[in-house]
């Protein structure tokens, strides 16, 4: 896969999935820890911004050559570590991480979002595989 295809196919899809998941996670974490806080319209920009930040570490998964299973798993792990570090650092720098409990909840939320992104992509691949198998059966006249 060339870099342009990687950006448009993988990164853009990841961005939109991450943005949706971040919106959900912010709502849940906010309701749990700061249920009385109210925001203005600018709050709508946060998921978009954090979606972009969350998508950036995805660059470590780019490779011109096809990666082996082990290489893929290793890069996925590096990606998760970078993702957790980057988002928690940005939140901490903006004064949003005020306690260990919040940091832990956010780290957990990021992990769940990352796993959800992988799950959605796998479900999409599963759907493609079903369509391919169905096309195959048609070709074989079964």
């Amino acid at each position, binding site marked *: 896969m060339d870099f342009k295809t990687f950006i448009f196919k993988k990164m853009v899809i990841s961005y939109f999935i991450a943005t949706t998941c971040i919106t959900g996670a912010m709502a849940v974490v906010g309701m749990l820890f700061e249920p009385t806080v109210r925001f203005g319209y600018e709050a709508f920009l946060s998921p978009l911004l954090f979606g972009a930040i969350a998508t950036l570490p995805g660059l470590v998964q780019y490779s011109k050559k*096809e990666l082996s299973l082990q290489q893929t798993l290793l890069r996925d792990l590096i990606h998760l570590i970078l993702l957790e570090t980057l988002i928690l650092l940005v939140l901490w720098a903006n004064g949003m991480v005020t306690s260990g409990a919040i940091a832990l909840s956010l780290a957990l939320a990021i992990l769940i979002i990352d796993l959800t992104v992988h799950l959605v992509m796998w479900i999409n691949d*599963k759907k493609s595989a079903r369509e391919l198998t169905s*096309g195959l059966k048609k070709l074989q*006249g079964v």
Partner: protein
Amino acid sequence: MKVWIKRIANKTEEQVVIECVEVTPEVESIQSFALTKGTTLTGMLNERLYQFNLAEVFYFEAVDERVFAYTKANSYELKIRLYELENAYHSQHFFRCSKSFLVNLMKIESISPALNGRFMAHMKNQERIIISRQYVPELKRILMGGTYHGL
């Protein structure tokens, strides 16, 4: 579709005639199938040359400059390059699924997802072959009749 079988005396005059209103993908599929049935290959097994039918081949594999054809029971070494096989038999349902494999689509049982945008072809002989990410769009184009547009 009606099917007739007419017995003849001479093997070299064997033929399949398809009478149709329009050449649809189904008709092309029958044509490809008939062509594979008539095609034989010669390969080396245990230092002896054997002839086998192209339709029996599950897949071709290139290993260190050598090319092998795998049938249900045997693997034959061929004196031909993988890209030459691909050029010769792509119209007969042989699909390049990775750098070193050319797989017979008629011998795939099912396809499942593998990690990182790849897919796994489950062959009818229980073997599994990886379909590389870069060949997936072409496979979708072949199997989804040109309705595939990218994502």
